[in-house]
């Protein structure tokens, strides 16, 4: 992976000066946040957090974690990974717990599943990540939060297939874009909802960027988040922007179960803070 100095950091598209005013017209003008998620708690929506694990008994999560799996690198196994059930997930890094905490704060009745693909083992990360994403898609998750990505070019095709597979199975992938100015996958595919950070703190204020690849900007700078060992910290990164959108998507899906991934993206566009409806 290499940062490209000629590329702007993705989050620069969501600075105050850069945000563009957009218009939702015709029938799209009727879509409002109130219609989209007003009164919704995300009840019954299954959300997978593919990350460093989730500390299931963290007080901020209020027993919303329903289980999960651990994906481990294993050279002897088929496809180099071994997937084990993880009924009471833990989190060695804190990152996944932070993401789950944000999702839960927006969609308190969504069911969260931990898919642990990051750990102390430094080998085979992209393969573990791919297998975790595949597991989530194949196990009836409706929203998958991906606050991680790979910049390894050779995985472009694999992740593209996995993203398409999710899209066709009616699963919304919400993917944080790379924190560094370099391409990363799967955040740059059109089938996913890609998210970078803006500096606001209202969890329901997000912006749409009409010049993708990165399409949405959500709070991700100096965010107070849950962390492992029952702690809380203040953190910055696109990682913390994605779960804000994942939470909103869970709310929309609970209220409008008939909507498909591309319709949900349209609803998100129409309800963005920089979209005028007329």
């Amino acid at each position, binding site marked *: 992976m290499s*940062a490209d100095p000629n590329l702007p950091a993705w989050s620069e598209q969501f600075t105050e000066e850069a945000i563009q005013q957009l218009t939702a017209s015709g029938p799209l003008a009727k879509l409002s946040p109130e219609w989209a998620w007003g009164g919704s708690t995300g009840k019954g929506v299954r959300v997978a957090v593919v990350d460093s694990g989730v500390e299931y008994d963290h007080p901020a999560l209020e027993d919303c974690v329903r289980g999960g799996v651990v994906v481990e690198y294993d050279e002897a196994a088929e496809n180099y990974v071994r997937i084990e059930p993880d009924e009471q997930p833990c989190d060695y890094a804190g990152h996944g717990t932070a993401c789950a905490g944000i999702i839960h704060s927006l969609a308190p009745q969504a069911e969260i599943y931990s898919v642990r693909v990051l750990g102390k083992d*430094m080998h085979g990360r992209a393969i573990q990540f791919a297998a975790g994403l595949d597991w989530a898609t194949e196990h009836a998750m409706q929203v998958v939060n991906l606050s991680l990505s790979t910049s390894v070019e050779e995985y472009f095709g694999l992740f593209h297939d996995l993203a398409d597979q999710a899209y066709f199975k009616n699963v919304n992938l919400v993917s944080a874009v790379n924190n560094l100015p370099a391409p990363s996958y799967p955040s740059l595919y059109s089938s996913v909802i890609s998210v970078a950070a803006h500096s606001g703190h209202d969890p329901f204020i997000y912006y749409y960027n009409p010049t993708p690849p990165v399409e949405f900007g959500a709070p991700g700078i*100096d965010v107070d988040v849950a*962390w492992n060992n029952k702690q809380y910290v203040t953190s*910055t990164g696109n990682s913390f922007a994605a779960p804000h959108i994942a939470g909103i998507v869970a709310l929309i899906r609970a209220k409008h179960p008939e909507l498909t991934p591309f319709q949900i993206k349209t609803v998100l566009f129409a309800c963005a803070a920089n979209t005028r409806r007329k």
Partner: protein
Amino acid sequence: MPTAKKVREEKLSEQLPRLLAAIEASGRAVSARPKDALLQSIVDAAGHIFGAAAASILLVNEQEGLLEFRVAYGASDHDLVGTRFPLDKGIAGYVVMTGQPIAISNVRQDARFNQDFAQSTGYVPTSILATPLLAGEHVIGVMEVLDKLNAASFGMQDMGLLGIFANQAALAIEQSQQMDQIRDTLVLGLKRLASADPSQPLTELLRQLQKDPGEKRGGPDVLALADAFNEISTLGEPERRACLQVLKTFADYRRSAHRLRA
């Protein structure tokens, strides 16, 4: 029936072009300066540009499961260099585990922060920005800057900028490791050639290479060879091939001379 010696020599002549291609691939970017001086200059530049009170680069020692401070700038002082701590400790450990950069303010309240360790260094920061040094998807180290002057915390733009510095540092480390590998391979090749005829002056070069790599005659010779080959290669494909042919012919000549004496 070829003798074992003959087989050895033939393998060497087959390997020479490959060795030379590897030298060519490593390029001139490999500095003759010790690699820590390059890393030090990167960390100094980052410290100045960020207006940070301190900055450092840590390298992963996978075998021992440790992170080691390699170079440091500013308030954290040079006392840090050489200090090691477990891979899963502190913010640097977090970056290794996730391969993601992170910015944190109010570090004192942070559960990830290896408080005891920071206190033992005599410097406890209030804000920190840390980013991985990546070779492909592999985290080989961590670069961090501490306490941005005139600001409460590091932002997303800082994160992008530090990524560029980290990229430079990672390339410097990678290329220096490649250079070490190439030198080792060359030593091996020369060893084979030398063992075929211990009276040849090559054994002297070999001895020099092993005795004091990179500083006395051997290291600069290898670099000079890489330089010369690179320079010739820039002239074009025919020149590059001619250069290889000359070296190959010389190797063949050495072999036949050796055979005549045998």
